[in-house]
């Protein structure tokens, strides 16, 4: 168990600050018509969230769980997830300002769309932070459902039939998935004896009562939770909304989907995994995660090969990485440690890729791979970032994702050799597919009508900062990160 809270008051304030900042920015977007005010509010809020998350992570690494209340509590997993939301969220906020300005200048969107964007962007970030920091499973569920509702309008942002279709698919599939997850969540409450109405149950209480959970009910509950939160994570076969939503949402939102929301849903699922493991042992949940993990990697890898749209390509890459994380946590031990680290690296790599994809879209006005040629000449800085993102996401040594993938594979080799071999072969297929598409887009002659040069330095700077952070964490991971990751691996 983690040491008792030593500064709960401070950390409650940090949690409050982190959640309240984007909510205030959202309210500002609702009441003001001035774009500059919305932009400033969003950027300030994102910096406040980043500072709060950094302090929170340091404190959790130093003293263990903070704010042990039935409403809010942040452990190592929570701190790690909040940190990824904050980093990707801050980068996305700064990137969004430049991205939305470009879209507005091109007359693709008007002032009401801009307002809608910043309103829902901040709500989305706030809902994710709430989900990651609340100690109550039902509040976690409500917050994750809130992420669905706040992002549905962002997927249909461009108001085209295809965007509408993607948003409807997203809304329906995620709503059904989350309702099933809600049912699974309720089943875990059967372990808590009630003398009438249910008390406020936090994760700690559920964990302490895990021994009283009927093993059969625990298994059924985990299956429902895995379907529910697995839908949000985007594990195959519940992944079908993901390529459509990622493909149609504005790229900063897609970056948040992949770099932050995936981790939020994964964290919720892992908390239930831990409770189920206490009730029935680790084999049951491990096997399910390994099965879905392998399926996700295989499905994603082969579809990536035939992909025609680079944003959808990145979506399938996310599914592949979600599969790797599921494999790591399914294998346990060093695999879980690598999977926790994989969450962090993947968030950064995918944000870099999506921001670069956004720049490509702004330049070429198309998400079709066949329409993008000679990007290296047209937008060299963006292309360099995209290539870096591709190398990072593919797990090229010595970058972080190489180490995590290697450790996940090594962790499962003894107990699940077939799964590991299939996954590794699929990773090779995914790498070749990604390389093929990246080569096609980056090289060759650029179309004459495409002007040379980046649209704005602010479309590059957030990605560049993420690259620096990614390299730093890859070659010299700080001690506090290892402390957090080790604590996650020990608990989940």
């Amino acid at each position, binding site marked *: 168990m983690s040491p008792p809270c030593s500064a709960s008051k401070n950390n409650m304030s940090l949690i409050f600050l982190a959640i309240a900042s984007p909510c205030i920015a959202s309210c500002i977007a609702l009441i003001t018509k001035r774009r500059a005010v919305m932009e400033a509010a969003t950027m300030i809020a994102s910096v406040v969230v980043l500072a709060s998350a950094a302090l929170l992570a340091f404190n959790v690494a130093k003293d263990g769980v903070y704010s042990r209340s039935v409403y809010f509590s942040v452990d190592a997993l929570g701190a790690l997830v909040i940190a990824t939301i904050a980093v990707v969220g801050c980068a996305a906020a700064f990137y969004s300002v430049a991205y939305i300005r470009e879209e507005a200048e091109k007359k693709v969107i008007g002032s009401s769309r801009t307002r809608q964007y910043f309103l829902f962007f901040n709500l989305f970030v706030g809902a994710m932070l709430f989900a990651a920091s609340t100690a109550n499973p039902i509040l976690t569920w409500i917050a994750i459902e809130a992420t669905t509702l706040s992002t*549905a309008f962002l997927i249909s942002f461009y*108001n085209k039939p295809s965007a509408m279709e993607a948003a409807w698919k997203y809304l329906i599939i995620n709503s059904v998935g989350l309702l099933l997850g809600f049912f699974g969540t309720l089943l875990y409450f059967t372990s808590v004896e009630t003398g009438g109405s249910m008390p406020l149950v936090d994760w700690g209480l559920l964990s302490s009562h895990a021994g009283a959970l009927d093993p059969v009910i625990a298994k059924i509950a985990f299956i429902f939770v895995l379907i529910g939160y697995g839908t949000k994570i985007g594990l195959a076969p519940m992944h079908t909304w993901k390529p459509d939503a990622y493909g149609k949402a504005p790229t900063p939102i897609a970056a948040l989907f992949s770099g932050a929301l995936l981790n939020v849903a994964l964290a919720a699922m892992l908390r239930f995994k831990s409770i189920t493991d206490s009730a029935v042992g680790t084999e049951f949940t491990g096997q399910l995660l390994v099965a879905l993990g392998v399926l996700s990697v295989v499905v994603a890898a082969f579809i990536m090969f035939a992909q025609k749209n680079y944003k959808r390509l990145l979506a399938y890459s996310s599914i592949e990485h979600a599969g790797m994380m599921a494999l790591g946590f399914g294998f346990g031990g060093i695999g879980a440690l690598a999977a926790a680290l994989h969450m962090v690296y993947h968030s950064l790599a995918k944000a870099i890729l999506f921001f670069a994809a956004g720049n490509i879209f702004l330049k070429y006005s198309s998400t079709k791979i066949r329409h993008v040629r000679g990007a290296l000449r047209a937008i060299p800085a963006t292309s360099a970032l995209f290539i870096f993102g591709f190398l990072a996401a593919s797990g090229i040594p010595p970058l972080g994702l190489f180490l995590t993938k290697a450790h996940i594979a090594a962790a499962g080799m003894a107990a699940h050799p077939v799964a590991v071999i299939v996954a590794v072969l699929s990773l090779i297929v995914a790498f070749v597919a990604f390389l093929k598409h990246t080569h096609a887009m980056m090289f060759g002659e650029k179309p004459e009508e495409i002007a040379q040069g980046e649209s704005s330095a602010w479309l590059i700077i957030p990605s560049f900062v993420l690259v620096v952070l990614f390299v730093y964490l890859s070659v010299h991971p700080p001690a506090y990160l290892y402390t957090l990751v080790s604590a996650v691996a020990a608990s989940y």
Partner: protein
Amino acid sequence: MEHLFVQLLIVIMFLAAVFLHVVKKNSTAAVLYCAQSAAMATILLAASIEADSRPLLFVALATFAVKTLIAPLFFAHLIKRHQLKFSASTYLSVPLTLIAVAALTALTRSHIFAPLVALGNGREGMLSLALAMMLISLFLIVNRKGAISQMIGILSLENSIVAFAVFAGLEQAPGLQMGIMFDILVWVVVATVFTSMMYKQFGSLDVTAMQRLKE
């Protein structure tokens, strides 16, 4: 007597879920959902009276307001605004649909669902019906091609999960139930706005008309 009354209410909820598969008119589907939700709110009201709890009474009233008044009003407005008299068709024919509904109901009586039904502690029959409603609602979402039917299917699924929670003694604290209710309210608003936007884009609420994402 009380037990019998609650049994009657869960039977009404179940029958509403079954008839949702048969009805052709969107307005009838909305009325059926309204009836199902009214039964659900009455069950919660009975529970609040039994527990002599004012917070639970507020939850029952909020349920009634959101699911029996507001959601059907939104549906009615949507149907009237776009002249959506008839729901889109189903993938399976009506006889096949009814056979599937019967099979799903029978499944909840099988050993597969026995551990869940056993949570009832004297209310096994009601839990079994709540589980059957869940499966039937899921099937409604899958089998119907109309967006309004899919929306009602999701809300019916939520009703059946709440019914299961009540009969299995898993109701949450009133504050959390209000949070869930707020979530449902926002969901209804968002889904209705989307449905309206979809109609403007596609000229139909038949989800099979949405083929733009195929590449």
